[in-house]
């Protein structure tokens, strides 16, 4: 049930956790579908990350505002209703102001509704904590998700097209790795990055205890 409001520094720890220790992509392995699908290049990856963060923040605030009214099994329905509303708004905003990106992302913007990250944070944090804590949790998770998407998108774009943000960065003789455009390349890149992240934290743990 609803806990009393946490102190600001405790609330901000949610932000840090969402950003790194409990990073949605590299630690929790949630939201894999958009992660693998839209990270072919940096621009769509960033757009998807910002859209997801927008939905995360708005739905966290609304869910947190009504957390004392949520009863039993209806809470999942309420989460989904809230998330669907803000995803629809995000989709309309994208179609109005970034039509090229909207066409590029295609069906994946409406699919943000079923992204486990959002409903996971709503259940784990927003429905139990006050608005400031929920806000910092949502921002941290969203930023962590966006960063993960951008790293993936940057690596895949450089390997697959030799460009970064559509500007050429690789030397002329570079042969494009077409596999990076396809799902196989996405899995490969994600796997290697996951390995690197795990290696980093293992080393930190060893340095901490050794």
């Amino acid at each position, binding site marked *: 049930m609803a806990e009393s409001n946490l102190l600001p520094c405790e609330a901000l720890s949610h932000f840090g956790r969402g950003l790194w220790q409990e990073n949605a992509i590299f630690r929790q392995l949630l939201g894999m579908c958009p992660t693998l699908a839209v990270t072919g290049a940096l621009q769509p990856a960033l757009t998807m990350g910002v859209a997801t963060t927008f939905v995360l923040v708005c739905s966290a605030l609304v869910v947190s505002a009504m957390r004392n009214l949520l009863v039993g099994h209806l809470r999942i329905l*309420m989460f989904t209703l809230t998330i669907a509303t803000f995803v629809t708004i995000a989709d309309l905003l994208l179609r109005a102001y970034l039509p090229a990106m909207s066409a590029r992302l295609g069906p994946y913007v409406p699919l943000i509704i079923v992204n486990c990250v959002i409903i996971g944070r709503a259940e784990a944090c927003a429905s139990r904590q006050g608005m400031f804590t929920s806000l910092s949790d949502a921002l941290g998770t969203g930023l962590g998700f966006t960063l993960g998407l951008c790293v993936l998108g940057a690596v895949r774009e450089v390997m697959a097209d030799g460009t970064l943000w559509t500007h050429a960065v690789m030397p002329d003789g570079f042969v494009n790795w077409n596999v990076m455009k396809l799902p196989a390349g996405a899995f490969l890149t994600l796997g290697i990055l996951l390995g690197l992240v795990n290696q980093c934290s293992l080393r930190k743990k060893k340095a901490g205890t050794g």
Partner: protein
Amino acid sequence: MLINFLKQSWLVIVSSLVFGVLVAVVHGQLAGRIGANERSVFEGAMQATFVANARSQERSTVDGEGNSVPYYLVEGPEGQKLGYAIEIVGSGFVDKIKLLVSVGPKAEKILGIAVLKSSETPGYGDDINDPLWEAQFAGAAATEKLEVITTGDVGRVDNQIVAITGATISSEAVASIVNKAIGILRGAVEERSVDDK
């Protein structure tokens, strides 16, 4: 019974109303911009198929099921007839596909197609947006139906469309939408030539 139901679900009902109004307001505010964006995609496709300063007049004809369908008569700057174009929607693999299909002045040759809106699978069906694949349609005769084949020469100008590997359904969807469009345009042209006489 009803009281019990309302006691449990009042939040769902109230928030559905509130969220519905919110989405409606946002949609109302942005519908103008979204329409303008779609319009500019259409204009861009028209200008790519015909010349840059072609003028298009909207006319109306009837399709196979008796519904009224708009199409465009396109004329050049000196008033010469450049051809006809039609915006047409059909079912694709994932969702609807909207095409702009253009034929020559006598509706005997396809001038080209442009995909205005589609949501096909990226890397597979999404390749219908590739200009090299769309170029297969340019120059094909509009007098026979287009046929989709699995292997062949993409550069050859004929009525056989080489499907995208791994995206047969998307390719066949586009071909069948184009066939439907040509049927409507040819019907419209015959109608006009009867009227002109």
